[in-house]
């Protein structure tokens, strides 16, 4: 029973990682380990704290299972703060007793600094660090309409986003002349301000708050140095963090001038029995306010305690963030002020609102730092140049200049073995290769072995490309099978279905696969069958294949209800039909919203109400809008020559014609169209899968554009087509895509992967270089001829309607669907 006692103070991210590292090293055989945590919750993911407001609960943010500590023989004492360290007696003191230690680790993190402005202790003056803080903010926000964040750094902007999410009118007040002064320079800061203001967050820089007092219209009034004032109901301070070093200070450990417990490379403090890790620790005069360096300290500390070798040798503070939806990246010496001979390249695009800066060595050969605002696409590549000291290309500016090919990427093969792939877990390309050489055969195994990509997740894409590339280099065929049930790609399955005329999933899996199928292959095959034969997806053989949205022909919402989106071709709708939509929404208590696709979405329909709702809509002449399907969504139009003084053709008419032609076409992913009546492009056709723009001489056809996650401009495929030529080209283009794309691959991504690029696509579609033009058109004809409104079909078939029951043995509605009113409409409670 005389095992040495190891005490860890603090159960935050780094303290927890230390325990994991200790367990991995078998330290529980060597020490009796006790962990004290002041918070009520066991260690949780502070990095993703803000997701707590987006619906994640404490349980899902927790870094381990509830019984992890007990199972591994570690005592976890939560809600018990250490109040003193008695070094003479080698004991820590809490409200509940004294505990002897042989070794002690400080992992107490930091606390948010609240500037001592008069009034800062008023009610509704809060901070943003812990789950309890977030609960307090949420509670205060209930009775508030406005909120202010003091501090425009990284965490301040995150807090501002949270306030916005709580539907407060939000402002950020920053003392410095720009936002994120640590990460960006004046130009970058200006751009960031513009972007953030355009999101409706007010930005006030150069503002020092003098005092906070009672407000007139709101709870507080903030008074600034120039006597200007700002009224607000709640204030969140985010003016920097300070190490929680009070225990260390009181027991006279060596401290930094501006705080922090001094540690050496082995994480030892000035008392060799005591270690410190994470944000409380000061190494080489630096505090590291990020989780990755903390994890490395935890590793070093675990080795120090267990007799290993790892030391902490500093860490890179490069960061890649998305704040309020705005990309910000800072690499190395981003300001260029740590290297006197450094030179910079800068690129500023005020239209697209992108700013990029490179800091390179005097001889122009090495990257010393970089700064990105507005677009982080080049971050990974730049990071590799920086972290691995790679020789820059002849013209370094090419790395930040816009290019039509998208951001330049550094191939996985160009990286040296020492290249860090995952910085959270410090995994190099060499380490990945070693696990492959030791027998790992896929990405999952590499992740399990190295932990790469299990931290912030930012390295996932790079890791995959390295693993794929290295596997290929080792002669391992990278498995492109759709899933474990079929040793085929989507394209191969598509060909099999067509060549063998297979019409059901059962037939396909019997002949070419095995097992029952799964949620990957079933919807993919359903889509292939629909593209080929267009039988109603509600047929008994197809029903079990569909995602719930297709099964119930409506989009499932977060509370299990559905949304209803009738087709409004071209966005043109008669007043009478509008009245019908309004009446139906009123009758069934549906939340109503105009969508980004020029139609109207009715949300909150209960499963059992869907048939009645659709009965009334179809009665009034509506059809399904396929908002639920991987299929043609909308053809957006501008008003065009019928009304617009500039219009050169009837864009609405063409949009309606196209929408009716292709409605019901199921495809690898959704398809969006638009038609504009002139070059002013009010329908935004150049952001669509298929975009049509009227010219004096006909129609210009653009293809493979995308809005959404990764916007891509559509490319001009053909010019000045007449109506018939236009439709022929679209028929062929779409069917060629349907045939050859991967599952869930939008036309934009498909096009980027298409060998031969746009020229090849032109040859196939316009010049019929493969000689399949007729076939593609015939196939489109089949789909078009087989069209029927799925909802109309279902309503005529009692067997199909059987599924629209809340319970098969009871007519009551689901009692757990609860709604509340907001802005005059219902929403999930």
């Amino acid at each position, binding site marked *: 029973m005389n095992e040495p006692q190891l005490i860890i103070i603090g159960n935050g991210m780094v303290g927890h990682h230390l325990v994991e590292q200790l367990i991995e090293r078998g330290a529980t055989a060597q020490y009796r380990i006790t962990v004290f945590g002041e918070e009520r919750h066991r260690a949780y993911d502070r990095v993703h704290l803000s997701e707590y407001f987006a619906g994640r609960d404490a349980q899902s943010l927790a870094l381990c299972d509830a019984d992890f500590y007990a199972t591994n023989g570690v005592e976890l004492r939560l809600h018990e703060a250490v109040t003193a360290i008695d070094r003479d007696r080698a004991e820590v003191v809490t409200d509940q007793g004294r505990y002897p230690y042989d070794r002690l680790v400080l992992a107490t993190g930091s606390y948010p600094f609240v500037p001592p402005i008069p009034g800062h202790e008023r009610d509704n003056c809060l901070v943003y660090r812990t789950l309890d803080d977030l609960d307090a903010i949420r509670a205060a926000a209930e009775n508030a309409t406005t909120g202010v964040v003091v501090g425009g750094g990284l965490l301040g902007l995150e807090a501002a986003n949270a306030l916005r999410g709580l539907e407060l009118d939000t402002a950020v007040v920053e003392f410095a002349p720009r936002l994120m002064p640590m990460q960006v320079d004046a130009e970058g800061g200006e751009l960031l301000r513009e972007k953030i203001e355009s999101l409706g967050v007010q930005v006030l820089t150069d503002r020092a708050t003098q005092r906070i007092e009672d407000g007139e219209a709101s709870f507080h009034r903030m008074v600034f140095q120039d006597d200007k004032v700002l009224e607000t109901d709640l204030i969140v301070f985010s003016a920097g963090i300070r190490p929680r070093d009070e225990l260390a200070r009181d027991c006279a450990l060596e401290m930094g001038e501006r705080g922090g417990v001094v540690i050496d490379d082995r994480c030892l403090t000035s008392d060799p029995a005591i270690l410190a890790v994470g944000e409380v620790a000061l190494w080489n005069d630096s505090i590291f306010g990020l989780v990755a360096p903390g994890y490395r300290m935890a590793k070093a500390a675990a080795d120090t305690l267990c007799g290993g070798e790892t030391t902490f040798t500093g860490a890179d503070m490069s960061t890649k963030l998305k704040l309020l939806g705005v990309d910000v990246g800072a690499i190395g010496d981003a300001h260029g002020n740590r290297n006197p001979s450094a030179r910079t390249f800068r690129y500023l695009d005020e239209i697209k609102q992108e700013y990029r800066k490179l800091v390179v060595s005097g001889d122009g050969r090495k990257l010393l730092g970089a700064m990105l605002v507005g677009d982080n696409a080049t971050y990974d590549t730049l990071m590799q140049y920086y972290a691995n000291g790679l020789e820059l290309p002849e013209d370094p500016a090419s790395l930040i200049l816009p290019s039509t090919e998208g951001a330049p990427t550094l191939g996985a093969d160009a990286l040296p073995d020492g290249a860090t792939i995952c910085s959270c877990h410090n995994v190099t390309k060499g380490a990945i290769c070693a696990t492959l050489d030791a027998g790992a055969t896929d990405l999952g195994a590499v992740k399990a072995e190295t932990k790469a990509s299990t931290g912030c997740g930012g390295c996932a894409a790079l890791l995959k490309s390295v693993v794929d590339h290295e596997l290929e280099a080792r002669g391992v065929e990278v498995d492109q099978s759709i899933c*474990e049930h079929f040793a085929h790609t989507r394209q191969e399955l598509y060909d099999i279905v067509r060549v063998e005329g297979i019409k059901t999933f059962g037939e396909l899996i019997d002949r070419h696969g095995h097992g029952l*199928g*799964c949620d990957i292959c079933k919807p993919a095959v359903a889509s292939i069958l629909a593209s080929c034969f267009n039988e109603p997806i509600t047929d008994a053989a197809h029903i*079990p294949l569909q995602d719930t949205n297709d099964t119930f022909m409506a989009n*499932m919402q977060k509370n*299990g209800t559905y949304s209803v989106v009738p087709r409004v071709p071209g966005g043109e709708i008669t007043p009478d039909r509008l009245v019908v939509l309004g009446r139906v929404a009123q009758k069934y208590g549906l939340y109503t919203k105009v969508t980004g696709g020029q139609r109207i979405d009715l949300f909150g329909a209960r499963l059992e109400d869907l048939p009645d709702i659709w009965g009334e809509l179809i009665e009034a002449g509506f059809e399904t809008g396929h908002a639920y399907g991987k299929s043609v969504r909308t053809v957006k139009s501008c008003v065009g020559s019928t009304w617009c003084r500039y219009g050169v053709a009837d864009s609405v008419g063409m949009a309606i014609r196209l929408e009716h032609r292709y409605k019901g076409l199921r495809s690898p992913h959704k398809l969006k169209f638009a038609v504009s009546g002139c070059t002013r492009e009010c329908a935004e056709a150049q952001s669509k899968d298929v975009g049509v723009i009227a010219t004096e001489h006909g129609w210009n056809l653009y293809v493979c554009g995308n809005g959404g996650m990764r916007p891509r401009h559509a490319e001009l495929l053909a010019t000045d087509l007449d109506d018939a030529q236009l439709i022929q080209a679209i028929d062929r283009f779409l069917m060629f895509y349907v045939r050859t794309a991967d599952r869930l691959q939008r036309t934009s991504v498909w096009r980027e992967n298409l060998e031969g690029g746009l020229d090849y696509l032109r040859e196939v579609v316009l010049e019929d270089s493969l000689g399949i033009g007729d076939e593609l058109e015939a196939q489109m004809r089949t789909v078009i001829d087989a069209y029927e409104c799925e909802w109309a079909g279902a309503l005529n078939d009692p067997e199909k309607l059987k599924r629209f029951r809340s319970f098969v043995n009871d007519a009551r509605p*689901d009692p757990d*669907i609860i709604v509340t009113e907001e802005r005059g409409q219902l929403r999930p409670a």
Partner: protein
Amino acid sequence: MTNATAAAPTTTATWQPLCSRDDLVPHSGVAAWLETADGPAQVALFYLPGQDTELYALDHRDPFAGANVIARGIVGDLDGEPVVASPLYKQHFRLRDGRCLEDETVHLRTWTVRFDDDRVMILA
């Protein structure tokens, strides 16, 4: 001689009829309302005709989303184990014992079910 100790009181489960075979959707799920001694429950029933086990009953409530939707997931198998994928965030639950494959700490309750001719019987 041994002393008889009173058994802890347990609510004994009995077989009760739930619905008919006709109510089921082959290779897919439906929801049913179940009254138990501990209060009502929403049950997701999955019907896999032709398989060794043809019928499964699990909680209808998705523990991740807190919505009653599990019966509307796609069924299939992973590594030979029959599973259902939640229609909301796509976690997989084993039909056999309700265990979530993505998060071992999460389980759906399961019930024993069987056919009695064309009636679906549940032990609850």
